[in-house]
């Protein structure tokens, strides 16, 4: 899922200080799971902002809506009737959601309420770690299901490098060396001979290096 972090409330206040009607728009997907922009966080932010404005002597109307998703037309249409009533919308969705709201409601001010961080997993409650960089050409089949692109600091295709010691990475002693993990797992799978196969130079044109990307599936298009 997409992992995001709440923005400091001071930063949000700075953007919406001049508003009199605000919509705080949550998203029921990834940002709900990583507890950054779901219904609950919408409630907390709205309550805190109401108090902030009241304390400034301003009665600001702050409404709360949480959509199923903000990255799909059909759900974003749900606020079509009300969107223009507000001076600004604070979207607590990931960067995708914020941009989609901004695209769809072109003349509306839209601000992000979270910092979108990475594609990751919930290791435990309150701990999310990166697992994928969406490079567009998955090599997990050759690396024992562990991604060296997202988990090796150098994105090495044939690691480890000399900075790997005791299974940890030289950039941070708490960070596992992805290549150590790969070798350990290949051993566990009884496929250590795969480690001897060199991975060829990767086609980075499917990564961001090729510019903004697009997936077109004519078979599912209507």
């Amino acid at each position, binding site marked *: 899922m997409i992992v995001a972090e709440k923005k400091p409330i*001071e930063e949000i206040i700075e953007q919406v200080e001049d508003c009199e009607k605000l919509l705080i728009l949550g998203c029921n997907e990834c940002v709900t799971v990583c507890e950054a922009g779901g219904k609950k966080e919408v409630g907390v932010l709205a309550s805190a902002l*109401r108090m902030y404005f*009241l304390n400034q002597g301003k009665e600001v109307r702050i409404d709360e809506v949480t959509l199923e998703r903000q990255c799909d037309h059909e759900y974003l249409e749900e606020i079509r009737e009300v969107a223009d009533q507000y001076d600004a919308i604070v979207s607590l969705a990931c960067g995708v959601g914020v941009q989609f709201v901004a695209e769809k409601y072109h003349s509306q001010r839209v601000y992000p309420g979270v910092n979108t961080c990475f594609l990751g997993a919930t290791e435990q409650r309150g701990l999310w770690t990166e697992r994928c960089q969406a490079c567009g050409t998955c090599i997990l089949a050759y690396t024992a299901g562990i991604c060296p692109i997202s988990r090796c600091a150098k994105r090495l295709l044939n690691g480890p490098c000399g900075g790997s010691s005791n299974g940890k990475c030289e950039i941070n002693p708490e960070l596992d060396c992805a290549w150590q993990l790969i070798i350990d797992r290949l051993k566990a799978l009884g496929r250590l001979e795969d480690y001897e196969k060199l991975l060829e130079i990767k086609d980075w044109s499917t990564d961001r290096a090729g510019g903004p990307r697009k997936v077109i599936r004519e078979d599912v298009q209507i």
Partner: protein
Amino acid sequence: MRLSYPTNIRIIRVPCSGKVDIIHILRAFEKGADGVCVVGCIEGDCHFKTGNFRARKRVEQARKLLESVGVGGERVKMYNLSSGEGPLFARYATEIVDIVKALGPNPIKRFKKNAA
């Protein structure tokens, strides 16, 4: 025991202090409460194991947020005591009332219509 404690405290019963969420604390202030104290069991004695630790974290979050929005983080406080410690409850109740009285009323009430 017939202990007395300040009458301006409104007790809201919850099954465990772990039930108290940050939004409950914020709503209380939004509705005009001058202070909120969460009273949980002694740490290590939670019937649900970690409820009071969760409550403590949420109180801390609420404290930071209230500080950021200018209401004042000192208005929220967490206490731990056992159900058999009536005199201590009365003492804590007096303490939080004194703290809040010294801080003055909830600042948002100056502008809020129909404040509690």
